[in-house]
């Protein structure tokens, strides 16, 4: 089939390979507009001196200002610096919040001697709840699903009293639970209300 004619069989236009920043994910030329410009530059300088010069040499800097007025350029630089500070503060706060957030494991009595176990708060540690539910279901050979609690937050509900085993799995960092710190686990028991309403 091939090589007898000069005509290529495909006219397809090959894709352009854009180099994206490893820090902010933007194409390199847009790092200056992101919220991590200083880190972006440091990382590029380490990895590729030539590319760094292409974007950040005196010459390149003078050229890129384009039709922007000096005041506007100053404003932009201030804006970028402020964005960076803000992003760092946000990351700090997010980390603090993460470290302080709790994973609640609750043993709930549904009927006499019939229990379910709810696990709440795993998402703060970047756990995919659906995957975690599946992992619990397989491990305990029982039903487990992601549901919303009365507060509207997602939690995993497992059939049966498996709270002690869940704690153990988190301590051992099994599967998708590997990044959940065991110090953040709280165990709670919810008794069936007498009399009911």
């Amino acid at each position, binding site marked *: 089939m091939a090589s007898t004619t000069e005509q290529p069989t*495909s006219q397809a*236009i*090959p894709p352009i390979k854009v180099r994206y920043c490893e820090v902010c*994910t933007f194409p390199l030329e847009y790092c200056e*507009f992101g919220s991590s410009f200083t880190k972006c530059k440091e990382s590029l300088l380490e990895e590729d001196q030539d590319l760094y010069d292409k974007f950040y040499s005196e010459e390149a800097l003078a050229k*890129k200002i384009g039709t922007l007025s000096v005041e506007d350029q100053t404003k932009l630089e201030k804006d970028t610096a402020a964005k960076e500070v803000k992003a760092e503060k946000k990351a700090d706060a997010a980390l603090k919040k993460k470290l302080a957030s709790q994973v609640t494991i609750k043993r709930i009595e549904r009927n006499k001697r019939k229990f379910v176990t709810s696990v709440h708060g795993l998402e703060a540690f970047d756990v995919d709840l659906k995957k975690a539910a599946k992992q619990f279901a397989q491990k305990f050979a029982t039903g487990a699903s992601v549901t919303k609690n009365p507060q509207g937050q997602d939690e995993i509900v497992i059939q049966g009293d498996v709270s002690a085993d869940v704690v153990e799995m988190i301590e051992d960092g099994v599967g998708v639970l590997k990044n959940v710190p065991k110090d953040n686990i709280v165990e709670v028991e919810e008794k069936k209300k007498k009399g009911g309403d």
Partner: protein
Amino acid sequence: MFKKFSPSTDVSGQTSVKTSVQRSIRSNILSQWKIDQDTLEQFWPKKESLILVKCRDHISIYALHGEPLFFQHFDGPFYPTLRLVHKYPFILPMVRIDRGAIRFLLAGAHMMCPGLTSIGGYLPPPENEIKSGTPVAIFAEGKEHAVGLGITKMDTEEMRRVNRNIGIETVTYLGDDLWAVRSL
């Protein structure tokens, strides 16, 4: 369109797209975008089956092997993702904003006419006028790659004439919540 969009809460389901539907999407894309079959075949081979990811507010994202390729709002035009436009920058008509407008776009603002008609900006010449309601790739002064995608809210000649108000409604841009979605 993708402000405060999070796959964990805003995706309602994933289904694979029937062959007949794929055929009609393919022909729509070939007529809506400036692309030929062979080039389209490169990132969406005929034998591969698309996944439709249904999202809130009637947004449909179409993905292949988890990678979002294009999306649609209600039954409006098909938009490529910005990453796809980076690979194939010619598939949508292009406009350019001046450097001053970049940071507003990256904050999610719609693009006002003056940012497009100034010296740093670009609109096509009258004979290639872009009609109102057309998806466009938004490039930026001094930059090689597109910074966002939008839809024209008036004809480009009208943008020149009126030179105020919103010329292009921003649909997606670098760093928005769709950009953050690498795989679905």
